């Protein structure tokens, strides 16, 4: 039985399928999975910083708006958000809200990342010693100057590990974009399976590719941490 599984899994025919499917999968990674992840994450972080600053601003309207946004995004499934943005808004009959699949995915993923990351960034900002705000105020800095020059650079160091977590999570979540017709890697895998009828083989191959991407990312994370830790006593 064991021998049979082994020999059948790595039969000449299967190896050929693996080889043939690798390039299309890689193409899905390079033209959709990675761009989708990167663009959504960058926009998401920008949203997150603004949301976090709104939350701690002490201005009621802004902090309430930030709370509502975070609550809605965190309280609903990402898949549902994707469907609302792509199918829901697309069905309104307003041209401006009819998105290409990729654009729709970027919008949903950015909003999703923005909400989760805003909590990470808020916690990181709050973790910075109050004395840092006072010191920057005492040399005449405004709130925004203090934030930009003193607080956020230090908060960035604190937030790298949890944000890396979000980033790696996002790489894998982009597979959900397959449901709104984005030809990212997982959709490519589904298409291949539809013709070869080898789900185990091809999905394991896809899983392996996701794992390699995430492994590389965790190495990059380590590098960044070392760099940002240079001013901290170790």
């Amino acid at each position: 039985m064991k021998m049979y599984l082994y020999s059948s899994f790595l039969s000449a025919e299967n190896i050929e399928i693996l080889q043939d499917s690798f390039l299309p999968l890689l193409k899905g990674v390079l033209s959709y999975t990675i761009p989708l992840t990167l663009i959504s994450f960058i926009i998401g972080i920008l949203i997150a910083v603004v949301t976090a600053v709104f939350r701690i601003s002490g201005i009621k309207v802004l902090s309430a708006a930030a709370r509502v946004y975070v609550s809605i995004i965190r309280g609903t499934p990402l898949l549902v958000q994707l469907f609302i943005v792509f199918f829901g808004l697309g069905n309104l009959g307003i041209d401006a809200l009819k998105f290409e699949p990729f654009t729709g995915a970027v919008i949903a993923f950015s909003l999703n990342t923005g909400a989760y990351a805003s909590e990470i960034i808020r916690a990181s900002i709050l973790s910075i010693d109050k004395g840092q705000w006072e010191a920057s105020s005492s040399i005449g800095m405004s709130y925004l100057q203090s934030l930009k020059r003193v607080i956020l650079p230090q908060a960035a160091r604190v937030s790298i590990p949890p944000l890396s977590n979000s980033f790696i999570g996002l790489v894998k979540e982009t597979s959900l974009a397959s449901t709104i017709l984005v030809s990212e890697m997982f959709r490519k895998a589904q298409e291949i399976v539809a013709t070869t009828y080898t789900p185990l083989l091809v999905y394991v191959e896809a899983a392996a590719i996701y794992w390699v991407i995430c492994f590389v990312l965790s190495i990059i994370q380590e590098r960044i941490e070392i760099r940002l830790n240079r001013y901290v006593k170790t």
Partner: protein
Amino acid sequence: MISMKKITKQFGDLVVLKDINLEVEKGKVVVIIGPSGSGKTTLLRCLNILEQPEEGSISIDQQTVDFTKRITKKEVLSFRKQTGMVFQTYNLFPHFTAIENVMEGPVTVQGVNKKAARKKAEELLKKVGLSEKVNVYPHQLSGGQQQRVGIARAMAIDPKVMLFDEPTSALDPELVGEVLLVMKQLAEEGRTMVVVTHEMKFARSVADEVIFMDQGRIIERGKPDEVFSKPKEQRTKEFLNLINQ
């Protein structure tokens, strides 16, 4: 140079400063002493509006802030630029080197170009005896060295008044001297200084006026010799006896 009138500050129901009046002439050094919780640090922090009093007004040089009226952020910022503050726990920016800490105020707040700011920062660091440590991060410095960078950073914005909030209280005893020496030097240059401290020797030798505070009020003030050698008030006597034991 400084004039505080009828300053009252509350934290909730707790009155921390009650009807404080204080005048400091240009070039004078005023040392504030008193037991913990007496309001001396709060008084100092009111001078650069890190704490905002509920009542009263403060003038520094030509600028006056009246706390009975609504104060804009802009007013606070412009008022603050007249003072430099040195903190008990230094509060250096850990992600900047020593010289970047000193340059930050001139570059970001005053818009001085980097080259000029660097030159000035080098001079200031030399003045506090840290020429060798220009490119070092705060965590690589001793407490005394960090505090001297803190003094240089505060001076870099050319403040009219220097405020010191227990600048040596967090230091190991053997490092206190180097910081006090720098402060003494500044005093001799004719800087206007307000110093909250427990260093009585420093107060005796450097202060032009000593102020004793207790429970949010100024209990006694005078020349250091008068306050230390022949205090008039019972509470001052008790406090001095306690710390001299």
